[in-house]
Structure formats: C-alpha cells, structure tokens
C-alpha cells in the first residue's frame, strides 16, 4: 500500500493552493512605495567601440529621474565569476572584467549600455529612445573555431586571445589513451554539435532594489535560485555592501532551470540605483530582453572517439570539445564544460582510459552558463550517440553493446576522478526493456509503414553527478565558494515546527516534500511543519538550489538539524518521564519509556522547552531550535536508461515522439508524485533540445531567435504522455536520506534517445546517414534523407 503521509507518500503540494488562486507572490508582484522603474538601453551591435553615449536629450524628458551609463560604474566592482579553471599547462584561465553597464566596448547584442530610471516604465522607455549612442562596429566573432584563430578579432583587447582556457583531463592519461587508440581493433569517431539553448523559465527575471537612508539597509527582491549567493557575490565583489546591511529576497520564483543561479548586472544596478536615486528601483525583463540577457546553455562543438577491442569492449575514449563562454564569464560558466562534463565521460561504462580536452572560447554572444543538467547532458549526448554509432558500425545490438560494457561493481572509481557509490545499470535497463515493449516494436513499425511513415527506436543510458558538492573537493577544482547547505529548525511551544532552509524552491515543491521528511522523523502530521526559504533575513547562509542538490544536500542539513532537535527533546522528555535518556524512544509523536506505559506527547515536551517550570535547567538550555550545516562527502550518482520511439514522415521530414520510457534510479524517494513531475519536465526540455529548440546567431552576432516566434519552445502537441519509473533504487550511501536527486535526469537522459530513434527511422527508410545534429527539424531530416541539393 502506498503511504499516505511522510517519506514515500505522494502528498499533494501545499504550494499549489496559492498558485492556483492567483495568490502567488512572484517578484514582479512586489511593489515598493515610491518605486521608480528602470529600462535598459541594450546594444543592438555584437561588437564595437562605444564612442559616445549622449543622454542630454533624454535627461529632461518627462518623468526621468536619472540616467546612468558605464561611467557611473567605474568605481564599482566587476560582476564576478565564481569558478576558476586551471588549464592544461597549470595556468589560470583568462578572466575578463565584466562591467555592470558597458564601458569602452560592447561585446554582445543585448549588453546594457545605459539605464534610464523614470517615474513609469513607459517614460523610461521613451527616454531611452532619445539617447544617442555612437558605436564603431568591429568584426564580430561568433564561430568558436574561428574565434581561436591567430588573426581573429579579440572580444577582450586586454586578453591575449579569445581562448579562456585549454583544459586537459586527465592530462597524465593522454599518452596511455593515445596508445590504446593505436592498439584498438575498432575506432568509432563522431563529430557533433550540442545546440545552444535558452532556459526560458516562464517567469522572466525581475529585480527590485530598495535602500533606506534611515538605517543604511539595502533590500534586493530578485528572481533567484540562491539568494545568499547573490548577497555574497553582489555585496562583496560588486557593490561593497557588507552582508549584514543587505537583504536578498527571492520569493515565489517562476522556474529557474539554472539561469536564475547567476548574479546578473541588473541586480547590481537596481541595488546601486536605489541608493543613488534614494528610492526603490524596479526592473522587469521582457521576454525579448530575457533572450539577450539571461545566460544561455550548452553550445559545445565536439569530436569524440571510442576505441574497442576485438570483443567490443571499450578500451579508451577521447574527446575534443569547444565550449562557448559568450562575451563574459557568467557566475559558474567555466565549471560547466570542465568539472561538470569531463568527470561524467565514463558514463555507465567501464572504459579504463579517458582523455577530455576542452577549449573554452570567448565570442560576441550572450554569456553561456549552466542550464538544466549543465555539462552532464553534453557528456551524455556525446557518449550515447557514439556508443550507438559504434554498435551500428559493428553490426551489434546497441543495448547489447551497452550491457556488455556496463560497470557492474560499486563503489566504482572512474578514470575521470569521481567514484560512483551505488548503481545498478542492468536493473534500469531491464526495467526499460519491459516498459518500452521492445517485443511489440516490429508490429508498430509495420503499422507506421502501412501509413507511409517510418518508425524508429532509440535508447540511451545516463549517469549524472548531483548533490553538488563536497566543499573541499570543489575548492580544489577551482570553486570560489563552499557548496554545503544549511537548515535551522525552530520548534514552537505548541509543537509546530518552522524549517528554515538554505535551499530554494522554484517549482520543485520543497514546502511539501521537506515537511514530509521532518514530520516523518517526529511522527507528527505534515501540516505541523512549515518550510521557509528564499529570504536571507530568515534563513541561515545557504547555497541554494541547482544541480539536483536540494534534498541530497539541503535535505540532509534538515535531517541533521531535526536529529539535534530530537536529541534535545529526548533529554527534556526523559526529565519529564523521570527515566533514563537511553530508555526514551520517540515514536508517532510521543516519547515513551521502553517496556513501560509511561509516555509524554511531543507537544508537552515542546511546551516544557519554552515554559521550563519543570526542566533540567542545570543540564540544558530552554528553547528548542537547532541549526545544521551539511557538507557531503561525495556527489550523488543518479542513473537510468531511456527509450524513445518516433514516427517520421519521409515526405516532410516531420518527426513525432510516439512513446517515451524512462527508467531512473534516484535512490530513495520522498514524494513519488513530485519526482515523476520533475522527470516529465526534464524530458520535455530534452525533447525540446532534440527536436525544436535552437538559439541561433548570424555571422555578425545578431541573435536570430529572440522571441517565442523564432525560438521553438515545446508545446503540448510536441510531446506524448511519458512512461516514467523509479522503482530501481540503489540508495546513496553517504547522505542520511539515501537520496540522489531527480531534477535534471530527464533533460540529461533524453536527447540521445530521440536522435538515436530518428536515425533508426531514417535507416529503416534506406538512409545511410550516420549522424544528424540537433535540433532534428523537419528541414534537417528531409535534407539528410534527400540531399541538400534536391
């Protein structure tokens, strides 16, 4: 029987009530008395010298409060990068200055040049039109391989080139890897593009800055996945505001998917301008602005090679990737193609030798950073496309080839620096084969062919590293932050609890699932637990939500804090029960003395903590409130196997997803309903990447896909009902809940299955094409099948 509450129950989400009735409190719903509005004048040129910004005509326009340009921010710090990569020669990456408003040069379309603060948004926008900007256009660099040529125009004149870093991993293994390729019985080579995407949470970014002359306190309301990180980065590195004078609030946030992790100029601007103008300043991004100012995702160009022996065992893997950084380094950008990508290249396979080379490149495009999966989808896509290609070259079944090379024993130390604690790749593949009804495929293909359509089947496996991460490890890898998580649990006198977490929920349902855990530990109803998040004023310093880390890291901090609460409550209970502490047990919301009928209810113990009339004051303090900081000892390693079945219309090249099956191993699960929903959403984003989405630039650096008219977001008609299973569970061995994280799996695991299925369909129609780049649009499919010259 499924549980009806606590860990393992599909408790309905408490946050839904406010979202379903229009009572959500998103940042754009927040208005501060007397606030002004800012409109950013953004560059429409990708690369140029900023000769002049003449605001004189705009200054006197109706409603204008003040106009800011780059000169106003000369004394202000650079927007910081939170991760430093060391290149293969032991040198630090090249790190350019990132101004709040452009100064001297513009480096991408959308870079803010001036900011008009006015009484109304319309007045600010009208005045911005009257600003005269002179830009001497320079040749733009867009293509990464062109950008690293010796004669390429430089995005940053003060850097030696457009190469941010040239990273080799593991550099010491390179010789052995090359030797294995020389000795291989078969080598499969694949060149592919991981298309640039835009995260597109449905809520555009918003920032409201406020400042009090009376107290000297700043408040920033912002659409963030990690308000404490924004407070630290902006306060310490950009504006020089000590953390105790700066409050950052990220209330209800309408989706993040990574792009709301980062500290953006607009946040620093509204905070700075609030003091400069002595009134609150509000910025609400339009969707068009979002396309040219939110950090983009993916954008890798890769050559990958697999060496196999005569028995089809993988003997070595070698990859060569160009990763686009855009014009500036966004907060975590350098870590994505390196530590979040290279360390995953073993995948689910026991390939003994691996070498990964990544060249990170500056171009005149919007900065690129983490997007759902962040490095892991790029790794999975390469590897799982490559294994499929190898299977076809060798004439063996793709599933059989995968199974033959699966890692079978855990813990498993990969040749790319990580140790998988648990997994069972055979179990998830077995489950997948059952779900996907492979036996029925031939009949379904026949039925499609009877309609003049082609049908294809594709699979892939995935592994991801989640729960980012052990602070001491990421510190060695270049992170300039700790990646612990925090939680304070406050028990009220009448027994209810407030859980104040450093994690942040922006769709994941933490208010529900976190309550389930604490309620289960104490044995009380879930509605006795309230979860507070998203405000630096009432939560302990935490690192926020990304990398599927909330439950694995934040949930662990919550468990530790709750354990401290229970330990103290037990002391109080043993005093009230006049029993030895070792004999007292907590069960179903009551403390009992083993072997007796003596019992004291949870609420009587909590009341005693705050009304300590009969209380062991000489031994323990009154009150019941505990904080824990949790820093894990390893990443977690969710894994799974996915299958996609497509139908392809050879007349038009149109591909439709007919079935999608996902067998995941997330370890233990707190709320199966929420976990399934997370996978659904990830699958739609992965299918979107595979079939629809593409952030396109022309060769001059003009952004061609800057609205939903041009950037193809997945709609309801583009996706099927999904079949999702997470019954294969190998719990994580190093966190107290045994959880692994589920937020990114769908987006990581689905693109290769889709492309593998499309190629299978094309082959069934006689095509000999062995690769097609994403998005697999009708145009691309038709050309691949008919030739571009037809």
């Amino acid at each position, binding site marked *: 029987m499924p549980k009806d509450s606590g860990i393992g129950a599909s408790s309905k989400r408490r946050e839904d009530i406010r979202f379903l*009735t229009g009572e959500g409190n998103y940042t754009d*719903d927040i208005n501060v008395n007397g606030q002004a509005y800012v409109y950013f004048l953004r560059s429409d040129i990708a690369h140029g010298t900023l000769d002049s910004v003449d605001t004189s005509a705009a200054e006197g326009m109706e409603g204008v409060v003040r106009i800011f340009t780059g000169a106003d921010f000369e004394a202000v710090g650079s927007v910081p990068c939170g991760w430093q990569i060391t290149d293969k020669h032991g040198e630090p990456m090249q790190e350019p200055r990132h101004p709040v408003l452009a100064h001297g040069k513009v480096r991408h379309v959308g870079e803010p040049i001036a900011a008009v603060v006015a009484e109304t948004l319309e007045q600010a926008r009208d005045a911005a039109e009257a600003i005269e900007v002179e830009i001497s256009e320079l040749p733009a660099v867009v293509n990464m391989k062109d950008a690293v040529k010796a004669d390429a125009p430089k995005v940053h004149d003060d850097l030696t080139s457009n190469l941010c870093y040239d990273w080799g991993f593991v550099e010491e293994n390179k010789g052995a890897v090359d030797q294995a390729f020389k000795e291989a019985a078969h080598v499969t080579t694949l060149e592919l593009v991981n298309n640039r995407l835009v995260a597109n949470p449905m809520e555009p970014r918003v920032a409201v800055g406020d400042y009090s002359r009376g107290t000297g306190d700043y408040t920033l309301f912002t659409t963030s996945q990690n308000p404490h990180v924004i407070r630290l980065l902006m306060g310490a590195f950009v504006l020089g505001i000590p953390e105790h004078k700066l409050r950052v609030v990220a209330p209800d946030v309408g989706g993040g998917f990574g792009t709301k992790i980062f500290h953006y100029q607009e946040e620093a601007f509204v905070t700075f301008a609030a003091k400069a103008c002595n009134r609150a300043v509000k910025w609400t991004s339009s969707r068009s602005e979002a396309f040219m100012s939110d950090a983009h995702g993916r954008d890798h160009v890769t050559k990958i090679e697999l060496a196999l022996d005569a028995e089809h065992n993988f003997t070595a893997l070698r990859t060569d990737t160009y990763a686009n950084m855009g014009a500036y380094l966004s907060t975590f950008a350098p870590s994505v193609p390196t530590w979040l990508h290279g360390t995953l290249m073993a995948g689910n396979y026991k390939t003994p030798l691996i070498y990964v080379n990544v060249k990170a490149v500056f171009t005149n495009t919007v900065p690129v950073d983490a997007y759902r999966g962040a490095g892991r989808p790029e790794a999975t896509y390469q590897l799982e496309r490559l294994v499929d290609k190898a299977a076809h070259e060798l004439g063996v079944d793709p599933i059989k080839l995968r199974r033959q090379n699966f890692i079978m024993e855990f813990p498993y130390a990969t040749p790319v620096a990580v140790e998988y604690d648990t997994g069972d790749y055979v179990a998830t593949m077995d489950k997948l084969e059952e779900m996907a009804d492979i036996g029925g495929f031939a009949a379904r293909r026949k039925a499609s062919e009877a309609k003049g359509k082609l049908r294809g089947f594709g699979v892939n496996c995935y592994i991801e590293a989640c729960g980012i991460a052990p602070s001491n490890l990421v510190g060695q890898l270049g992170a300039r932050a700790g990646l612990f998580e925090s939680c304070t649990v406050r028990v009220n006198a009448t027994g209810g609890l407030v859980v104040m977490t450093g994690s942040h929920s922006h769709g994941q349902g933490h208010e529900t699932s976190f309550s389930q855990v604490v309620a289960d530990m104490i044995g009380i109803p879930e509605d006795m637990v309230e979860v507070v998040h998203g405000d630096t004023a009432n939560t302990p310093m935490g690192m926020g939500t990304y990398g599927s880390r909330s439950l694995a890291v934040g949930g662990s901090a919550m468990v530790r804090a709750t354990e401290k609460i229970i330990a103290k409550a037990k002391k109080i209970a043993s005093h009230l029960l006049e029993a030895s502490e070792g004999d007292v047990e907590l069960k179903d919301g009551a403390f009992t003395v083993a072997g007796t009928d003596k019992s004291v209810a949870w609420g009587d113990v909590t009341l005693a903590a705050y009304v300590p009339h009969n209380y062991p004051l000489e031994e323990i303090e009154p009150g019941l409130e505990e904080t824990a900081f949790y820093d894990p000892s390893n990443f977690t390693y969710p894994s799974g196997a996915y299958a996609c079945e497509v139908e392809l219309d050879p007349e038009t090249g149109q591909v439709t997803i007919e079935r999608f099956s996902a067998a995941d191993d997330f370890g233990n699960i707190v709320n199966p309903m929420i976990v*399934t929903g997370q996978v659904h959403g990830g699958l739609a984003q992965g299918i979107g990447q595979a079939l629809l989405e593409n952030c396109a630039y022309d060769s001059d650096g003009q952004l061609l896909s800057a609205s939903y008219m041009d950037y193809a977001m997945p709609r309801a008609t583009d996706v099927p009902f999904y079949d999702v299973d997470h019954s294969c569970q190998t719990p994580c061995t190093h966190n107290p809940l045994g959880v692994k994280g589920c937020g990114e799996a769908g987006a990581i695991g689905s693109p290769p299955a889709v492309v593998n299925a499309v190629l299978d369909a094309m082959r069934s129609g006689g095509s000999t094409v062995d690769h097609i780049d994403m998005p697999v649009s009708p145009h691309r499919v038709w050309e691949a099948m008919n030739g571009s010259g037809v």
Partner: protein
Amino acid sequence: MTEVKMTVNGKAASGNVEGRTLLVQFLREDMGLTGTHVGCDTSQCGACVVHVNGEAVKSCTMLAVEAQGAEVSTIEGQAAPDGTLNTIQQAFQDHHGLQCGFCTPGMVMSAAALLKDNPKPTESDVRHYLDGNICRCTGYHNIVKAIMAASGQDVSAIAGE
C-alpha cells in the same frame, strides 16, 4: 487618459488608463490582481489568459480601453467565495499539473474555456487547445491529464507516478 469601467470577477472596476495600457497592466497594476502573469511580449505564452465576456483572451494583446464595459474574469475569481477550489483547480492539484505556478493561471483559464466549448475533450483536443499556453516545468503530461480529469473522464489509464 481615458476612464475605463468594467466588471472584474463580478465586481465593478474602473480606472484611468493611457491609450496604450494593456488589459493585463490594468488588471495587475491598477486592480492589484497579480495572479494574471506576463511571460512574453509576442502573445505566445498564454500566462496572461483571462476571460472577457466569457471568451478566453490573452490580456497582453488587448488594450484596457477595448474591455470597456466588459465582464472580465481572472484566476482570482475561480475558486468559491469560501476558498474551495473549482473542479479544474482541484484537478490541477490532484494530478500535479503545476510546478512553479507561473503559467498556471493561464492554463486554468484556458482549460475552463476549452471545457465550456468541449466538455469531453480527447487528449489530442486538449493538446491542440493548449497550443497558445507554454509551460516549461511539467512537460504538459499532468496538465493534459488534469484537464481530462476535470472533464469527468477516467484518467487512470494515463501513466501516473
């Protein structure tokens, strides 16, 4: 400035607006009804869907002055006065048809308009009707399922958790 008068969720509403003021701005900024959201600027995403004289309308694509005298209903007017969710809202909660909640008001309003015209929609009917509502969180599975459930159809055969 022009004075506009309309009925919003059954109550008289009025205000002075510019000619360029959109209905969604009037609702959010003048009426304080912030449940209606703005997710794009090209009339694509549907987070702003409200009902005007019973028809689903993207309130980012209608001027406030065009709603002069109209009956407007928004997400804030969907639950019963005592707060009980209506059938569609309840189905969205029961079937986990929302995550971040930002597209949700538009989804609920579109679903209501669909079920008024088509009380027993097929999966394909629902998916096609939602072409103008983008959700980035749910992958649509549970939204489609919730709307079919709200129409009284048995959804137990659709994959669950």
